[in-house]
C-alpha cells in the first residue's frame, strides 16, 4: 500500500476538519485519499511504457451557515492542512446562501460490501502485469490472420484507500478498494480498408481478467468491419450491442440525477411516477454489487450506499439524490454523492447502473429484429447527445440484419432519436449481461429497439 496508512489518513482528515472550524466554518467535511497506481502500455511485443506511482490528497468542504466553499491540495503537512481548512472557510464566505446547503446527516451505518479490495492486486509484480498486457496483444493477433497489428495494449490498476471526516461525526469513516482494467485496440486490413476493434475487461485485480478473451474480442471486432460500406438512410429495428447500450444507459442515468432534474436540464424532469419506458426494461442504480467498481460502503458525503430501482414495469420510480438535492425537495438521499477524486466536491452521480437481463441469446435478438441494424459502436456521444433535451444524433458502425441474421458490415452512418423514446421502444433485453466501463460503471445485456433512425446515403 502507499505511504499513508489508514490511521494517518484518518488523522489528516480529522485535523483538516478542525482547521476549517477554527478558521470560522460552522461545519466541515474532509475527504482524504491515497493511491498506488500502475500502468503498462505494450506495442509489438515490447513494453512502451511502465508507470508506477503513489499519490495522496485531501479535499475540504466548509460551510458558513448555508454558504459553501471547497479547497483541495496535496500538502499533508500540518501547515498545508491548516491552510486548506482556512482556505475552504474563506471561500465559503464568497458564496451566496443556499438554504438547503450543509453537511450530510451522520445517521445510518455504512453498508457492508465484501471484496472491494482484492489482495491479489499487490501480489502481482510489475513483470506479471507486463506479461498480462502482452497476452492481451497476442490474443488480438491470434484471433485472425487479417489482424495486422495492435495500436496498444494497456493495463492499469489502482490500489487505494479513503477516509472521510466531518464536524458531525465522532469518528472518521474509511475503506480500501482496488480496481483494474485492460484494453486494446486492434487493427485489421490494409491502407484502403483499415478497421479497428476494441476489447476490454475490468475487475478488482489482474487475477479477474482474461487477457486472451480481451485480445480476441478486439481482433474479432476489427475483422468483422472489413469491407464495410455506408448503409441507406432508413428507420428500422436495431439491436444495440452491450457496449452501445451501456453508453446510452449512462446518459439516462445522468439525466435521472436530481440536480439535472431540479435545474430543468433533463428530459425526465416532472415525469416521476409516469409510465414512459418499455416494460422490458428494468433499470437499477446498485451501489452495493461487489463487482461494480463504483460500489462502496458510503458515498462522498458519508451516506450509506444502497440499491435504488429506477425504472420497472415501464414506470419511472426514482431520481438519484445527494444530501443537497434531497433537502431541496424533501426527499431522502440515495447515497449517490460521488467524487471523481479529492480534487472535486461531491455531486450527484449514478453508482453502478444495472439493466436486468432478459432471456435469449444475441442471435435470438437478431432473429427477432428480422431486418435492421446491429449497432456495435457509437462515436461522438459527447457532442451528439444533448443531455438537456434527450435528443441524440451520433456516429455509428455495425452490421446489417437481414432475414433475422447478421449480414454485411456498415459504418459511417448516424443513429438519431430521443432518449426517452428510446426507452419506450425497447422490445427485449438479451439474456447475458457484463460490466462495461463506458457511461460510468454499467452492467447491461444487448438490447433490441423497435425503431431507430439511421442516416446514411
Amino acid at each position, binding site marked *: 500500500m502507499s505511504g499513508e496508512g489508514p490511521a494517518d489518513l484518518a488523522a489528516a482528515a480529522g485535523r483538516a476538519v478542525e482547521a476549517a472550524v477554527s478558521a470560522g466554518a460552522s461545519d466541515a467535511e474532509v475527504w482524504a485519499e491515497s493511491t498506488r497506481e500502475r500502468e503498462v502500455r505494450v506495442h509489438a511485443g*515490447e513494453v512502451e511504457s511502465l508507470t508506477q*506511482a503513489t*499519490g495522496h490528497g485531501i479535499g475540504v468542504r466548509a460551510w458558513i451557515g448555508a454558504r459553501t466553499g471547497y479547497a*483541495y491540495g496535496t500538502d499533508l503537512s500540518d501547515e498545508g492542512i491548516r491552510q486548506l481548512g482556512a482556505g475552504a472557510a474563506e471561500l465559503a464566505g464568497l458564496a451566496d446562501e443556499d438554504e438547503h446547503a450543509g453537511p450530510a446527516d451522520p445517521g445510518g451505518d455504512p453498508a457492508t460490501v465484501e471484496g472491494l479490495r482484492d489482495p491479489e492486486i499487490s501480489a502481482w509484480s510489475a513483470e506479471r502485469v507486463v506479461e498480462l498486457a502482452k497476452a492481451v496483444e497476442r490474443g488480438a493477433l491470434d484471433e485472425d490472420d487479417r489482424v*495486422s497489428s495492435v495500436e496498444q495494449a494497456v493495463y492499469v490498476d489502482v490500489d487505494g484507500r479513503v477516509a472521510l471526516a466531518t464536524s458531525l461525526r465522532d469518528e472518521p469513516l474509511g475503506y480500501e478498494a482496488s480496481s483494474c482494467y485492460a484494453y486494446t485496440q486492434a487493427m485489421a486490413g490494409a491502407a484502403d480498408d483499415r478497421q479497428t476493434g476494441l476489447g476490454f475487461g475490468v475487475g478488482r485485480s489482474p487475477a479477474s481478467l482474461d487477457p486472451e478473451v480481451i485480445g480476441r474480442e478486439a481482433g474479432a471486432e476489427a475483422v468483422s468491419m472489413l469491407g464495410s460500406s455506408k448503409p441507406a438512410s432508413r428507420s428500422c429495428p436495431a439491436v444495440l450491442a452491450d457496449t452501445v447500450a451501456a453508453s446510452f444507459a449512462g446518459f439516462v442515468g445522468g439525466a435521472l440525477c436530481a440536480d439535472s432534474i431540479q435545474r*430543468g436540464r433533463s428530459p425526465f424532469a416532472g415525469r416521476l411516477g409516469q409510465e414512459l419506458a418499455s416494460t422490458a426494461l428494468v433499470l437499477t442504480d446498485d451501489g452495493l454489487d461487489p463487482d461494480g467498481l463504483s460500489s462502496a460502503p458510503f458515498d462522498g458525503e458519508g451516506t450509506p450506499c444502497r440499491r435504488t430501482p429506477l425504472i420497472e414495469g415501464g414506470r419511472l420510480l426514482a431520481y438519484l439524490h445527494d444530501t443537497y438535492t434531497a433537502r431541496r425537495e424533501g426527499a431522502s438521499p440515495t447515497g449517490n454523492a460521488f467524487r471523481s477524486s479529492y480534487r472535486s*466536491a461531491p455531486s450527484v452521480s449514478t453508482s453502478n447502473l444495472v439493466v436486468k437481463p432478459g432471456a435469449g441469446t444475441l442471435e435470438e435478438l437478431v432473429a427477432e429484429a428480422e431486418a435492421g441494424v446491429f449497432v456495435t459502436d457509437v462515436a461522438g456521444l*459527447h457532442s451528439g447527445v444533448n443531455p438537456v433535451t434527450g435528443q441524440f444524433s451520433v*456516429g455509428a458502425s455495425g452490421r446489417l440484419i437481414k432475414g433475422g441474421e447478421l449480414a454485411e458490415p456498415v459504418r459511417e452512418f448516424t443513429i438519431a432519436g430521443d432518449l426517452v423514446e428510446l426507452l419506450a421502444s425497447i422490445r427485449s433485453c438479451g439474456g447475458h449481461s457484463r460490466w462495461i466501463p463506458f457511461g460510468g460503471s454499467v452492467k447491461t445485456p444487448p438490447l433490441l429497439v423497435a425503431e431507430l433512425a439511421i442516416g446514411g446515403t
Partner: protein
Amino acid sequence: MSVELLDAELASRVLARSLERGGDFAEVFCESREGFALQVDESRVESPQRGAERGAGVRVVSGEVSYFAHVDGLAEDDLLRAAEAATAALAAGAREPRQLKAVEVASPSPIEIDPASVEPERKLELLREADQRARSAGDAVTQVSASYSEGSRRVQIFNSDGLVASDERTRVRLGIQVVAARDGVVETGFETLGATQGWELLSGDPGRIADQAAAKALALLDAGPAPAGETVVVVGGGFGGVLFHEMTGHGLESDAVQKDASVYAGRMGEMVAQPLLTAYDDGSMPGEWGSGAIDDEGTPSRRTAVIEEGRLTSFLYDRVRAGHDGTESTGNGRRESFRHLPVPRMTNTYIAPGDATPEEIIADVPDGFYAVSFGGGQVEPASGDFVFGVSEGYLIEGGKVTKPCRGATLIGNCLQALNRIDAVGSDFEMKTGFCGKSGQTVPVGTGQGHVRIAGMTVGGTAVS
C-alpha cells in the same frame, strides 16, 4: 522569468539515481499548479473552489521504453524513491548525467495582471453581469450558468542531457451556458472566452459572450430537423477549426504515424489537400490557449508548417518519437501534469487565412449546410473516420443562410474531407478547447477562417 521549484543540486542527484541501473535518458519534471474557480448558477454564487498541487514525475528512457514514476510533493526522499521505482525493471550499468545548464526561453504570453491578485468580488461581479445579460436576452431564457476559472502552472524540467528549463503558464477562462425553452422545445447555447493571459483578457466587454450564448439558444428554438444526406458544407471560422484539429491534426501526431495508426503514415511530401490550403501548429503564438515558452520536455515552442499549399510537410514530434525517426522534437511533447508521460500533442493548430470573405464562400452554394460551431467530435486515426456534433447549424439555400437546424452530425473520412476543401476564408480567428488523448487532457487552440467542403455527409433526424 525563470521558475525554481527544485534545487539544481538535488535535481542532479535524482538524475544520477535515475540512471544508476542503466537507461539512455533521464528527466525530472517538477510542477506546481494552483487554480481558482467560481460559478453562478440559478443566479446564485455557487461552489467557489481553490486547489493547489505540487509534485514531480521521473522518467527514464531506455531504447524506446519509458519507465516512469510520479509522486505528490517535492521532498528529497520521495524524489529519490520515485527514481528507484521508475527504474526497478532495469538492470544495466550506470550512466553519468551531464552537467546541468539553464536555458532561458521567454514566454510568448507575458502576464500583465496576475489573476490571483484580483479581488474575488470582481470575478463575481463579472459572472453576475453575464448572468443578467443572458437573462435579459428574452423571456424564453430559463436557465443560465456562468463560470470563471483561472489557473497557473509552473514547471521546471531537468534532464540528463544537461537541460534546465522552466515556464509559467497562466490561463483565464470565462464560460456561459444558456438554456432557452418555448412550447416544450428546449435548446442550449454555449460560449467561452479564454487565453493564456492574465486578468487583462477580461477588460473590454467580456459580457458579450453572454449575449452570444443567449442568441444561439434562442435562434435554435426555431430550428427544424437537420437534413440527412450528402451536401456542400461551409464550416464557420474560429471554433470550426476543431474539425481540422480532429480530422487531420491527430493523424499528424507522430505516435499514431509510427504505429501505422494514421491515414497520413507514409504520405510525407504528398498532396493531401488543394493548393489553397496551408496549416500550422504553433505553440509560440502570443497568448493563445495552447501556448507556452517550452513544451513539457523543455523544447522551445515553435511554429511547424504541417501542410504547405496542399502538401504534407511535417508530423508533430516529442523527443522519443523524434529519436525513432532520426529527427528533432517539434516542441509537441506535452502532458496534462507531472502525473503523466509526455506524448506528441497539438498546441495551437490552424488553417492559415485564405482570400475569400465568408459571404463569398456561402454565395457560391446553391444548396448546402452551414456548420457554425461544434459540440465536439471524435476521429478514429487509423481509419480516418470522424464524427462531429453540430451545436449551431443552418441550411444554405440559393447562396444564403436560411433556417436553423437542430441535431445535425457531420460524418466522413478525413482524407476525403480535407481534399475536398475548396475555399478558405480570410476571417481568421482562434478559439479555446480541451483535447483528450491517452487519458490526458491538455488545453489547445484551434482556428481558421470560414472553410467550404465540396461534399460531406450530414446526419440529421429528418429521414427522407
